[in-house]
Every structure is written in C-alpha cells, then in structure tokens.
C-alpha cells in the first residue's frame, strides 16, 4: 500500500530506507527494489546521508517510482538554496514522487567534503512551510505555479533525549512543524520503549502519525558506538549485553529489532526501519515481527 493511504487508513505502516552509493552503479538499488517491492508501504531514499556525497535522492526515488514503489524523497536544507529546493520539488512531482521528508541535514564537516559551504537558506520548518505553499499553487516569491504540487510532507523528531531541555524542545518543534504542514513523523531509532512511551503520551495530543525508528543491531560494538556517538540513540545495557553474549549476532540483532517492533505496535502508527546495510533482511525482520 502507498504510505499516505496506509496512514490515512489507520494501517500500522512500515517504511524503510535505502542509501544510494557514491557513483553511477545502481545495481544494488535495483536489487533492493526487487526485494522490498510489495513488502513495505514506503521507501525513503536518503539525501547525501551523513553529508557524504553520493547519487541523488531525486534520481533514485524516480527509479523506485518506475518499479511501482512509493518512495519518500528525503530532502536536507544543507545543500540547496530556496531556488534549487523548490525546483527539485517540482521535479519530484513530475517524476511521480508523492512523499517528501524534510530534515536539516548533518553539517558538512561530518561528511567527506568537509570544506564545503553549508547553505541552510531555509530551515526545516521553513521548507515544510514552502512545500505546503507549493501544494497550494504558489512559490516562495508568491508567483502562481502552472500546475501545483501534491506532496505528502513528513518531518523528523527525536523522541528520546538526554536533557529535559532537548526533550521539551523536540515536542515544541514537532508542534511547530505540524503547524506549518508536517503530516507524518519519522523518529530517531528507538531502543528504550519506556522512554518512547513517555514521548508518545505527550505527542499523541497532536494527532499526527508517528513512525518509530528501528535500527537492527549487528554487534555489541555497533550498539556501544551508537550509544556513545549518535544523537538521540539510547540503548539499555541489557540489550548491549545480549548482543555481546549472542553466538549468532545477526539472529539476535534481528530478534531484538522484531521484539522492538512488536512493542512499538501499540505505541506508534508505524515503524521506519533503517537497516544500514541490512536492507535485504528487512522482509525477514517483518516476518519475525509478524508484520509481513
């Protein structure tokens, strides 16, 4: 089912994501399209993820549309000014892309072109607002569009925070993003279900669907690394221990992800699986979680 229809229809939605490679080789994307087609409600294509230069999200989304899938065009505010952003939104519409996910984007110094100029002409909230203007038939300068867009706009939120300020700020930002037109949310990876529940108790008042982020663990080392370095990711110690003790790390990682998804099913309106190299295993995770 397409993402918007799934969410509108109250189905527990499942999305995942693919990251284009650096170069013109699209064989892996084609293979993943075969594997994921019909298994999920939407596939995000990341936009120069981690500020590392790669094949574009727009072109990759277009390939997925051709395959009959429903891609989510991720757009960061880091690399394009308002002219390029709006133009790419028009291009996306023409190419049959229906969903856009707006993010600020990692700072260039975190990527592989550390001497690049950052843009941020628009911030996330302003880009969401811009897309809604374009959906109404106008560009940012107030000019009427000859053919308006009809894009389903999503945004991101970090449900678990290390400081009270950050937690409260995230809720405020979620509310602000909704006020300018965000229609669904994807979250940072959730491992602490209790903390996520606390967030959802507050977020439920906004009545906008939330897809909880899920990243399957591959090793205890990966778990520790994310715990230490990835903003908004907090793993309970017992989960790291389980990974450390596991004989079959992959099976344990997938089982933990499936268990999380079963737990999240009652708390959120869907899940967003970020498999980070394990995209081919997404159908297996869904089977394990009884979501296939």
């Amino acid at each position, binding site marked *: 089912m397409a993402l918007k229809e799934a969410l509108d229809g109250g189905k527990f939605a499942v999305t995942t994501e693919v990251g284009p490679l650096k170069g013109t080789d699209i064989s892996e994307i084609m293979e993943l399209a075969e594997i994921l087609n019909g298994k999920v409600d939407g596939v995000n294509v990341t936009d120069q993820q981690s500020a590392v230069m790669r094949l574009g999200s727009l072109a990759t989304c277009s390939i997925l549309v051709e395959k009959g899938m429903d891609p989510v065009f991720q757009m960061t505010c880091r690399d394009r000014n308002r002219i390029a952003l709006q133009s790419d939104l028009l291009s996306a519409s023409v190419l049959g892309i229906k969903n856009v996910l707006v993010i*600020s984007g990692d700072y260039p*110094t975190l990527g592989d072109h550390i001497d690049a100029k950052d843009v941020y002409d628009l911030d996330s*909230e*302003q880009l969401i607002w811009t897309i809604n203007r374009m959906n109404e038939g106008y560009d940012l300068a107030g000019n009427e569009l000859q053919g308006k867009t009809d894009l389903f706009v999503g945004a991101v939120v970090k449900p678990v925070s290390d400081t009270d300020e950050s937690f*409260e700020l995230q809720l405020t930002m979620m509310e*602000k993003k909704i*006020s*300018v037109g965000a229609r669904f949310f994807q979250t940072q990876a959730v491992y602490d279900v209790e903390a996520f529940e606390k967030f959802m108790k507050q977020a439920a008042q906004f009545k906008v669907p939330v897809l909880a982020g899920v990243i399957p663990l591959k090793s205890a080392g990966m778990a520790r690394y994310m715990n230490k370095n990835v903003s*908004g990711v907090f793993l309970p110690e017992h989960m790291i221990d389980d990974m450390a003790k596991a004989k079959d790390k992959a099976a344990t990682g997938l089982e933990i992800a499936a268990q999380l998804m079963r737990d999240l099913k009652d708390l959120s309106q869907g899940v967003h699986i970020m498999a980070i190299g394990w995209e081919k295993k997404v159908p297996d995770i869904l089977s394990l979680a009884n979501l296939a």
Partner: protein
Amino acid sequence: MLRSEQKPFEEILRYLEGEDKVFIVGCDGCAQASQTGGLPQVLEMKERLEGEGKTVSGYSVVDFLCQKALVASRLRPLEDTIMESDSLLVLCCGIGIQTAAAMVKKPVHPGCNTINLGGSRGEWRGSERCMECGDCLLEYTGGICPLTVCSKGLRNGPCGGASNGKCEVSPEKPCGWELIYARLKETGRLDVLKTFIPPKDWNKMRPRPEMLSTSMWALEQMDESREEGTV
C-alpha cells in the same frame, strides 16, 4: 577589532616569486595586538625575506592601516623608496591590505589571513555575536541570536544533532537552541518558540551602498589630493 594570522611563509614567498625589492607595511592597531603586523613581526619578516635572498627596500608600521589619512601621511615621505620597489607586502587585516592597495600604485601582497570572529561587534566583547542581518530575531529567541549561536544558523529551532547539550559540529560548543530554550524557560516566555519565523530576506544582510563609503572629511580630502601623487 579584527584578528589576523600570518600566512605560511612559503605562501608569501610564492607571491614574491620573480620579484626582488619588497617594501613591508605593518600596522600598530589590531595587527599589532594579533602579533602579526606590529614592529617585531615586520622586522622578523624582513630578516626572513633577506634570508631567502630578497631585498627589503624599506618598511613602515602605520598606526592604523585602515585609516587612509594616516596611511598617506606615513607613506608619502617614503614614496621614492616605495615606487622603486617591485611590490608591497602588507602584514595586516583584510581592511589594511585593501587600504594599502587602494593608496599605492604598486602590486600589494597580503601577508596575513583575517580570522572570522563569527560576528563579533561592540567595543567590550563578550560571547555575544551579531551578524548584522538587518532583521533582528532576538524577540523570539530569548535575546540569544540563533544565527550566530547555532552552527547551522537555524531560525525556527534546533536540528536533531545535539548530544548532552553539545553541538554536532563541535563537542566543545553548546547547542545554541538549548541555550535559547533555557533562557526562554527562565523568563517564562516559552510560548514565543511556537512563532513560525518565515524564510529570511538575505538582501537585508547585504551592506547598503552608503555603508560601503565613508564621509570622513580627512579621507575625502585625501581622495581629492590623491591624483596629484602616486601614494
């Protein structure tokens, strides 16, 4: 005040390739305070260039190289020496280098890089920064400027990159938006965070034409008399 640092010596030597006689200009203002273009640095540069076989035809340290009237009064007595030189090497901020280039009809080489202070203005500097954006947002941000305090200059709120209150760009830097949030909370004004800040008009950040000139009488007089001499 502008902060500067000397360019790598090898880079300066590249600029001077094919030239023999160089005249060094320093500045007793900010460059002196930055220890990049005061008298000791000018003398040190003279020695290093001579060590590389260059001829230093002369040098001068102007009180404020940004002040054209002062520059003219200091350099005019040295006009013959300067005009016999192949070029000038200026150890100063970008303003001083441009002033020297505008005043002297000789090639001028920059000897320093000017360091970005992130919008530091005001006479008695603290940690506050102003980008002179021409459309002040401080009403909505607890009196803390998001353009300068947030690494990405985000106007409506934070990105998702902060960890333990620190910025994703630099772990030594606090997340600017968490500072803004704390200030607004402290003053009971969290409601202003819900105000949507529309896309910024960056034109307002460009200097107006009249800001690019000066009305200083001394400068105008110097400009008028400039045609007569070469310095």
